[in-house]
């Protein structure tokens, strides 16, 4: 049996599984169904939620933290970061605001995870 640690949440379930002819034939140790989809993704196309931040203009803070609304393919992370680096948004920003839609065609949005109030520049 192979072993893998699910990274979807801090429970960190230790999943034991075996594969025959490219198919998962047995799985144990995952405490929720997300563990199974994590395992499937991990064998095919590993995916991660990416938390980072974007620049804010006229905000009480220079940055608003953001995350991808769902995991995106790991191999796209460098390209994703390049893209996010270019982004600059106007305050106010509210938690849950969609900053980028369907980023890199992954089906995931980039959403704000922090409220940043507007300050009027002098």
């Amino acid at each position: 049996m192979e072993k893998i640690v699910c990274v979807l949440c801090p429970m960190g379930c230790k999943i034991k599984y075996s594969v025959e002819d490219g198919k998962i034939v047995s799985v144990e140790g995952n405490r929720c169904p997300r563990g199974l989809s994590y395992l499937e993704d991990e064998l095919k196309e590993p995916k991660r939620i990416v938390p980072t931040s974007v620049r804010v203009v006229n905000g009480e803070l220079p940055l608003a933290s953001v995350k991808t609304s769902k995991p995106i393919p790991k191999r796209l992370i460098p390209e994703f970061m390049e893209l996010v680096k270019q982004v600059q948004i106007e305050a106010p920003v509210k938690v849950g605001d969609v900053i980028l839609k369907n980023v890199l065609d992954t089906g995931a949005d980039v959403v704000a995870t922090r409220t940043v109030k507007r300050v009027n520049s002098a």
Partner: protein
Amino acid sequence: MKTDVLVIGAGAAGMAAAIAAAKRNLKVVIAERDEITGGILNQCIHNGFGLHYFREELTGPEYAERFREQLSRYTGSIEVLTDCHVLKLDRNKKALLVSPKNVFELEAKVVVYAAGARERPFGSLMIPGDRPSGIFTAGVAQRLMNIDNRKVGRRALIVGSGDIGMIMARRLTLEGIEVVGVVERLPYPGGLLRNVIQCLKDFNIPLYLSSTVVEVKGSERLEEVVVARVDEQFRPIPGTEKSFKVDTLVLSVGLIPQVEMLNGLVTLDKRTRGIACSNTGQSSNEWIFAAGNCTAVFDLVDYVTKEGERAGEYASRYVNGERFSLGVPIVPGENVMLTFPNYYNDVDDLTLYLRCKKPMEKALLKVGGFEKTFEDLIPSEMIVVKIPKQKLSNLDRIEVKLEEV
């Protein structure tokens, strides 16, 4: 000024305590030295928070914002003082507070102390060599990058593989800073396995186990860090030195409960180094309750919130005239590094937090008449169990043991 409850610190524990007290119709003042409430959550922009408490995964700022929002629903009963530092607390329940506007005294019927923890500083590591710029604790680097939009350096080495260290390794990498490695004194990683995977392995960042920094070099800015392997007593092994040319060193070498303000007022626990508390959150001084990382350093903010609520609830009951005894001592036994709480009062079942002393494949936890088997234990992953009070009756001390099976 007078209030029923003074909460010191508006991080996860303090906010939860304030809300719990307001729900019981008490007048609450919550003092926070930062400009906003939320504490360290504000700079922890990674995900992984709230899974136990909200049944969904949030980032730190989102988690903080949910509680900030709740605080604002109790404007009638909770007064939030930000940018406000509690200078001292005296034996007569009077606190001296200072803010940019004024210095004033506040008299409370009960205090919930929720001041969190501080990072172990570079100075305490006794590392030989120069003292150049470019050496940061992980929390400071995190604040500079995630709040202030400052880049901390170009090429970095991380010391300590606790969760904060690994998360910062990923953060630095994502922001274009080259992370050449993470150095860990112990023979196993200090943080959660999920972070070893998603923060280090995903980015091919090497983890140097059983290793330590033996010298830092640099005239103004850090230029070089020398790392060596250590033996079982953590002594560097001569001849194993490896040099890293880096301009940045990030330290994630532990958190220390912040307790100084209560010196002389409460007793501390020698294992957690935090304020010794009962399961009610009460300290050795009956009108001082405490919760969160100032009592013991917790793995998850969800636990801290729960403990804050608990302290807020019992502090409120104290204001309303109930009196609690600390209860019987809880003592770490075989293979147990520390436990929280430190005393048990049978007003309720016991939520017990503990850490094992060493990695264990399989262990049987024994607490009074309670037993439970655990697998794959490591010291960095806190064990949490709820123990019914029936299993703890008629004990004059509660020993917590982990037997190898």
